[in-house]
């Protein structure tokens, strides 16, 4: 067990190093920071001096070590565009994205899992068929169109909900939250629905496929043969085996939530990290792009690590194999 955790930890460190290397290459080979920072009026001597001062003449490896070391200490450098420290920029926008993502994930799971189970148990029913056609359309409608539709319906036509920004926020330490005001919650509804709907279709399809597979396994057949009541077969025997992979689903979905939060934040002008990333692409703000990449990769790695560990904790079969 300890060996397994150690192995996964070492793997994660290597993945992070690889991503840091990628981000650093981006930083080094794409565009020239000196020409970004200085104007035409700066003399060549001044430019050369600045280059030397910033350590840009050092060997590649030395620069990479310094880059990684600075990152580890929380120093992410400065944005080309706004000249602000990137760490502070990202930190101020992190709560918005996380709150949006978590609420969307909850929506996708709370609706998606029951719907998946239902359609797996009654695959030929009318309700199941309509749900399945619904998910096909859901997969085909791009996130931004769902956003526009919701804005049009609830924002413009009915006028019930705000369509941009975070509404009233409360500052708790460095965390600016919109979860503590009614206005903030109202602002959160449309973006999180937009983000959640797409994930919802994925959750549902995965749970459905898994449940159908479990229902075909031998232990379920044996339970049927023993005369175990249907209710018990479905909700105790089958469901517990179905829900183990759901942890992986949550892990996988996190990636989707982060990626599509870029789109959602753009549609709703939600001041999160995705919007920042999009701005940095438009203005070729390489430092912000590369730091965003590292931060996102860090989230991915941590979530994947947690998923693997939870798996061992929950699925007894893995523990048995480990000790055998």
């Amino acid at each position, binding site marked *: 067990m300890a060996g397994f955790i150690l192995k996964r930890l070492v793997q994660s460190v290597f993945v992070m190093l690889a991503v840091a290397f990628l981000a650093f290459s981006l930083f080094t080979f794409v565009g020239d920071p000196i020409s970004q920072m200085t104007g035409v009026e700066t003399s060549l001597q001044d430019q050369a001096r600045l280059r030397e001062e910033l350590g840009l003449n050092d060997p590649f490896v030395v620069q990479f070590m310094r880059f990684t070391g600075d990152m580890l200490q929380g120093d992410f450098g400065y944005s080309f565009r706004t000249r602000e420290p990137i760490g502070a920029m990202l930190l101020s926008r992190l709560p918005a994205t996380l709150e949006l993502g978590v609420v969307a994930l909850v929506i996708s799971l709370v609706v998606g899992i029951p719907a998946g189970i239902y359609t797996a148990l009654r695959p030929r029913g009318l309700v199941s068929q309509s749900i399945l056609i619904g998910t096909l*359309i859901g997969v085909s409608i*791009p996130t931004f169109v769902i956003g526009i539709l919701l804005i049009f319906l609830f924002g413009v036509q009915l006028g019930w909900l705000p369509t941009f920004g975070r509404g009233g926020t409360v500052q708790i330490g460095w965390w600016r939250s919109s979860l503590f005001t009614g206005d903030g919650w109202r602002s959160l509804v449309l973006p999180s629905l937009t983000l959640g709907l797409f994930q919802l279709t994925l959750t549902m399809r995965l749970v459905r496929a898994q449940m159908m597979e479990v229902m075909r396994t031998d232990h379920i057949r044996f339970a049927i043969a023993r005369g175990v009541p249907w209710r018990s077969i479905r909700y105790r025997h089958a469901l517990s085996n179905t829900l183990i992979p759901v942890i992986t689903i949550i892990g996988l979905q996190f990636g989707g939530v*982060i990626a599509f939060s870029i789109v959602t934040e753009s549609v709703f002008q939600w001041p999160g990290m995705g919007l920042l990333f999009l701005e940095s692409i438009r203005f*070729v703000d390489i430092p912000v792009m590369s730091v965003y990449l590292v931060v996102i990769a860090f989230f991915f790695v941590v979530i994947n690590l947690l998923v693997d560990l939870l798996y061992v904790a929950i699925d007894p079969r893995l523990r048995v194999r480990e000790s055998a």
Partner: protein
Amino acid sequence: MPETGKMARLVRSEGVWLFSRSPSAILAAIATVLIVLGALFAPWIAPTNPYDLASFSLFDGLLPPVWADGGDARFLLGTDDQGRDMLSSILYGARLSLSIAAMAMAVALVLGVGLGLAAGYFGGRLDAIVMRIADVQLALPAILTALLIDGISRGILPRALHDDLRVAVITLAIALSLWVNFARTARASVFVERNKDYVQAAIMMGQHPLRIMFRHILPNIVGPLLVIATVDLASAILLEATLSFLGVGLPANAPSLGTLIRIGMQYLLSGEWWILWIPTVFLVVLVVAINLLGDFLRDLFNPGMR
């Protein structure tokens, strides 16, 4: 009455029979064919050329579609604020969207199938490297990959050159985020096929690995690849539309469907609904139709799931 022509065999095949019994597949096929034909022949069937500034005038601006009050018979689907015919813009936009998606899908197909076949056939270190890259790629959502590639290309290429290469950059960005599916399927199929007698026989006859891969194995895995190609075409259309909507895709002077929707967003609050909703509906119908076809093909090639 025995007929042996290829056409006759096709007509009597299982696929055609199932197709004729599936209303959703027929509808989807009709919609797809109509849209593809419209896009293909846009320069000949569109009433005006939306790229030609002389072909429209500001006086015709913001006219609603024919069936609405104040519609003008010259403009079937109305006009935008510049007086551009919406139908023409949409046909040309679909032409651009579809050609980018098809090109991206083709690049992804060639790249993915090539790598997947090689990885599956040779195994060993090549397989490990290709699959490791595929894993990393799979962990990164396609939209993120595409955005990153676009961002990097902006940094590397001078501004003017980047604007000229917009279409190529977007195509490449989409292709690089979609090749993994092809590679994984090709590889998995090769693992199965490699141990079959016909492949073993070909190896023993001393045929060249390339010949075995492309002449013997590839024709036998066309089915699953076709399914992925269809589904990926839909994803490619969505990706392009999303990138253009986010404003990092194609420029406004050569609008694709996504760009048209982005422009239409400005009219969300005003009464000119057609500028936003007609391209949106068009895009959704196109993607739904292609996905339905993909679903049909998947059922056809996986009889177990039927």
